[in-house]
């Protein structure tokens, strides 16, 4: 390791997971994430203790993840939007039972069967829980293959730390594109032992019987459980929020964008700076918890914000919540699998600057 390789995003994520100690993968084919299960099916049988299994459906796959995570393993599944919708029931159970796992969503266009082209229209679903009930997942949104690798490894640690699923939200492009990537040497941090896992019990073995469960029939107990989960989410909000800021200090206009869109926004920002418009970029890396702090800070001096997404406008709601009416928040989005261009974003900001004058 340590040397640069040219890898497809999906394959790099799969290899990063194996490096991070993931030995179990349960998946189901769907475009544009197929290289993850394909890579896992090739690699995992060659890794000691590794097991790849193609499930009969996304529903089965996520429940296999539940069983494997409940048995204490590092486990992953991946899918793309319609498949992630199918997994939502299982994800809700996994959260309820406080099981760690990593889920990858290479988002494609929707609604329905939509398209197989990249999109970011699963933002609401990802950041608001997605399934039934009151819950959150950590949502990590890489904008390069290298970052996908690093975040995938981090995802396993975070999942174990919080006993909560972590979602890697790619946008199709991240999965499909090839970039040079350096596989970092994974060093496992100190994490709590999985004494809660179901691995076999007998009286006097030194722990209570493990019961992996999300059913709390007593309303008081369930409320207590939900409060416990939310106390955990509060810690995540404190500790795990990640973002990248570029040239925001003197920016009159701040673009907020994540994933692939952030790369395009960065090019637009540079172009606009060349044209004399002071533009900055805030790129959320965690979509949940959402990086409110840098946006609030920028709202002190910026004239306006532009949120760019490959959707009809979802993250823009969070940006508006963070800005809280202090400054205008505009939105520019393309959908259906269409990726916004640098030129389009430049025009948006130029129009905003013109209107301001």
């Amino acid at each position, binding site marked *: 390791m340590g040397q640069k390789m040219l890898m497809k995003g999906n394959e790099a994520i799969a290899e990063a997971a194996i490096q991070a100690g993931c030995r*179990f993968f*349960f998946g189901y084919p769907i475009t544009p994430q197929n290289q993850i299960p394909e890579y896992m099916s090739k690699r995992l049988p060659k890794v000691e203790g590794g*097991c790849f*299994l193609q*499930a*009969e*459906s996304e*529903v*089965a*796959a996520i*429940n*296999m*993840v*539940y*069983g*494997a*995570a*409940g*048995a*204490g*393993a590092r*486990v992953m599944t991946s899918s793309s939007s319609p498949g992630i919708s199918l997994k939502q*029931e*299982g994800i809700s*159970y996994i959260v309820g*039972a406080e099981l760690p796992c990593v889920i990858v969503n290479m988002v494609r266009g929707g609604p329905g069967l939509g398209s197989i082209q990249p999109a970011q229209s699963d933002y609401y679903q990802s950041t608001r829980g997605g399934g039934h009930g009151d819950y959150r997942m950590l949502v990590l949104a890489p904008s390069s293959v290298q970052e996908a690798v690093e975040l995938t490894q981090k995802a396993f640690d975070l999942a174990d730390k919080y006993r909560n699923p972590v979602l890697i939200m790619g946008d199709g492009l991240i999965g499909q594109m090839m970039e040079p990537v350096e596989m970092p040497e994974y060093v496992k941090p100190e994490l709590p032992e999985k004494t809660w896992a*179901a*691995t*076999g*019990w*007998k*009286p006097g*073995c030194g722990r209570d*019987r*493990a*019961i*992996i*469960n*999300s*059913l709390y029939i007593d309303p008081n107990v369930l409320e207590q459980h939900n409060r416990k989960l939310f106390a955990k989410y509060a810690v995540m909000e404190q500790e795990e929020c990640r973002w990248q800021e570029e040239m925001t200090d003197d920016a009159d206009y701040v673009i907020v964008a994540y994933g692939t869109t952030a790369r395009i926004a960065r090019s637009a920002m540079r172009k606009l700076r060349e044209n004399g418009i002071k533009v900055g970029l805030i790129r959320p890396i965690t979509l949940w918890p959402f990086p409110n702090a840098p946006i609030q800070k920028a709202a002190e001096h910026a004239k306006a914000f532009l949120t760019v997404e490959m959707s009809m406008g979802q993250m823009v709601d969070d940006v508006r919540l963070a800005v809280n009416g202090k400054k205008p928040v505009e939105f520019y989005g393309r959908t259906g699998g269409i990726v916004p261009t640098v030129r389009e974003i430049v025009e948006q900001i130029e129009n905003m600057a013109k209107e301001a004058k």
Partner: protein
Amino acid sequence: MAVVYEKTKMLTDKPLHYCPGCTHGIIHRLVAEAIDELGVQDKAIGVAPVGCAVFAYDYFNCDMMEAAHGRAPAVATGCKRVNPNNVVFTYQGDGDLASIGAAEITHAATRGENITVIFVNNAIYGMTGGQMAPTTLPGQVTTTSPYGRDPNHCGYPIRVSEMLATLDGPAYIARVSVHDVKHIMEAKKAIKKAFQMQIEGKGFALVEVLSSCPTNWGMTPQEALKWLQENMIPQYPLGVKKEVE
């Protein structure tokens, strides 16, 4: 004085929540006794369903997982693949296994997943209040087939054991009943065998247990067992449907 019969330590002290005369309790006991007698309590991991047996994790005195409706075979698969030395079993009703979980059970069976499945067939949805199940008999009245199940309208009951026995994957499939002591003893033998198969690494084993639901059938426990014997057994013939050497 020697003990002829007492409650196995593989059941916890928690009183069962089942209705009076419900045969779930008998089947729980048979499963627990089988695990105890095979000496694998410390390896056993049970997967509870959604349905009347949803609280099974309170009763089986081993590590347990509670699965989403119908997904127990997938959960058991994940668990077993991680720790192949564990003795993993699911306990599922007919709505759970034969309706919403038809895909999961079929694929666990065809993979020859080395798990033990206890399938409790009482021809009705018990927990939700007596709705029609995939195993409800033609003509049987339930809360969602108030005029009796009409096969022309909603199809025929599924014979799960026969269906799964057509697959190459399973190692052992049997249908038993618990309507009297003789059949309970036979059921016990089959359940024990199904665990034995797993321990020996032979693969997927399923025991379908014909069971009663006095409450939702609207019968006394005694009438229910008689009804089971007279109506269910002709529809669901008892016996070993598949067994590999």
